[in-house]
């Protein structure tokens, strides 16, 4: 089995605050991440694809096609943005990195076929580092953010 992983970088701000909790509960749960003015990170996103390598080209997919796809479908939405305010999916969703991973996974899966439908490759995994001490991995596909139980893996792996 062969897979290709491409790493991307984006900087964004967010605030962790759940409307289902009181201000005091939010402050206790999220600590500094509940700061009302928000704060930011330099996120590192890895997208791993797998499938059949084209024997004539030695490629699973052209890197430029992958870069254009991630740039257009993901980075354009998140880079240099306030995730709570600027990314519509987070209007009612706390932008923990678990949820950022889920939304990015869902966007990748939703738009995959229109960009890669003629290639025998599929998205396999995304990994997000919020900082270099917090990493999150999510196996794809993610079918629906609104219906998390439809996902192949319901939990997001967290490693220190």
């Amino acid at each position, binding site marked *: *089995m*062969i*897979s*290709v*992983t*491409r*790493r*991307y970088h984006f900087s964004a701000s967010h605030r962790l605050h759940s409307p289902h909790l009181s201000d005091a509960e939010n402050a206790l749960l999220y600590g500094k991440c509940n700061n009302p003015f928000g704060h930011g990170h330099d996120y590192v996103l890895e997208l*791993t694809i797998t499938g*059949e*390598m084209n*024997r*004539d*080209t*030695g*490629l*699973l997919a*052209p*890197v*430029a096609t992958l870069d254009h796809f991630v740039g257009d479908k993901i980075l354009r939405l998140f880079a240099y943005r306030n995730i709570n305010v600027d990314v519509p999916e987070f209007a009612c969703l706390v932008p923990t990195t678990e949820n950022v991973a889920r939304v990015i996974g869902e966007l990748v899966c939703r738009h995959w076929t229109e960009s890669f439908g003629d290639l025998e490759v599929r998205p396999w995994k995304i990994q997000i580092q919020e900082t270099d001490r917090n990493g999150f991995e999510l196996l794809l596909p993610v079918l629906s953010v609104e219906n998390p139980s439809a996902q192949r893996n319901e939990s997001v792996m967290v490693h220190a």
Partner: protein
Amino acid sequence: MLVTRKAEFSASHCCRAAALSDNENWALFGEESHPSGHGHNFIVEVSVAGEPDPVTGMIIDLKELKEILEREVVEPMDHRFLNHEVEPFGRVIPTTANIALEIWRRLEKQFRPAQCHLARVRLFETPDLYVDVTPPAHA
């Protein structure tokens, strides 16, 4: 259990398909298609799977793993132009995927099956692009 050893080699390559036009090669390979070639500091991480020997406590002696990587990968590829000097890249385009597959082929026979086996080859072309080869190791 896995044990992983890292090695580095610097090499030049050029990714173009002879049957395609310059424009088609650019669309597929981008900057990698410049005919005169360019180079990378490739980093290869080789993972071997097995159980620690009850006497030595080791899956494989890391000195032996280091020697295998040096002999099979670093010595033949370091400071070489892969297309011109390293088989099979005279006829196979040395994309990251093909180099990783070739490293797998060179390494898979190097381990004693009763002791350990090759589990993964991870090849970084740059810090932002890497390929994993795992069993079954075919494209």
